[in-house]
């Protein structure tokens, strides 16, 4: 949980205006506290990801929303999958899980 000032110092040379623009584009959605934005760990990691995409991989800001939207969809699906696996692990009997694994390994249509 850190403020925008601390974030800017940590991610130098990233500019405060960059982060503020990303927030107004809703690419990053920090909480709002009494003294301004409050960034959780995931927000910080997301800012860093956007910074890397833009500055190191040269994905320009025009293309960024497309990339972020695809990533968000990908992570939605992966989260679902994790939850599904977790639910299977907790509820399905060993036998069912073995059958499932065997079936998937056979690659039957």
């Amino acid at each position, binding site marked *: 949980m850190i403020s925008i000032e601390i974030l800017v110092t940590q991610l130098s040379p990233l500019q405060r205006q960059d982060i503020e623009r990303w927030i107004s584009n809703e690419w990053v*959605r920090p909480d709002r506290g009494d003294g301004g934005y409050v960034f*959780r*760990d*995931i*927000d910080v*990691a*997301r800012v*860093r*990801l956007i910074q*890397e995409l833009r500055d*190191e*991989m*040269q994905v320009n800001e025009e293309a960024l929303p497309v990339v972020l*939207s695809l*990533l*968000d*969809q*990908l*992570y*939605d699906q*992966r*989260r*679902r999958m*994790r*939850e*599904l696996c977790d639910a299977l692990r907790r509820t399905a009997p060993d036998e069912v899980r073995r059958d499932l694994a065997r079936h998937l390994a056979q690659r039957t*249509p």
Partner: protein
Amino acid sequence: MEDPYQTLGVSRSASQDEIRSAYRKLAKQHHPDLNPGSTKAEERFKTVSAANELLSDPDKRGRFDRGEIDAAGQEQAPKSSYRDYAEGEPGRRYGRAGPQPEGWSAEDLNEMFGKMFNGDHQPGANSRMRGRDERYALTTDFLDAVNGVTQRLTLPDGRVLDVKIPPGTADGQVLRLRGQGGAGNTLIEIHVASHRYFSRDGQNIRLELPVSLSEAVLGGPVEVPTPGGLVRMRIPPHSDGGTELRLRGRGVPGHGSRAAGDLYATLRVVLGPSDAALEAFLRDWKPEHPADPRQAMEAGQ
């Protein structure tokens, strides 16, 4: 530890630009956030980043070339990457359809298990594919949209739907009725008619409240219409026209996690029919503190 030049695929005499572009190319390929399941990509990315960190810094590169430090010497503790959060609980914050609550919605379950139990899921076997969504529009009364109502809708094919409009429904909101037996969803766009004196401002309701001259000057109890019925309110003495009074919690009623809004009444002084006594009084009236209400205005502005 690999030779960082080999890692990036550049020669020992590569320029800084060549190193940067080689790194960018590899970063695009192996960035862990772009390859969420692959530990290989993650390892590769770490190596590539470490190599870049070493070679992109002329000072470190020089020391490495001179054999003063080895390739691993500069490796820093890796920062946790976006995917460490995105795949877990915190990732719900950036769900595609906005922040998501915990647990699966009926829609999520349907998306996964609908396919699972429908049996036939060959591509092209569209006999079991979900039907198309149907869209309808429904106009509803202002207060019905505020307070919630069940309204009957007759479809063009003669079917009759009872549409449950939840309290606080806004103009343009789309309600979704789940299709049954493989049929598509029915989407109903709600149009909220305007009201004679109420208007919506999010969860708050605004209204212009006419008051008599004596109520404005002397104050006193008045009855204010609210979406939930008449409510008594005390007007403070000397309330000028345009004064805004708030009735807390008397706006749009709360629903689910949404709190009730407030009602804002803006006073409008109404003189009423002409009154000889009032006119006679005013003619003789000498104000205690004579004031020009237009004093702040400047000519021509």
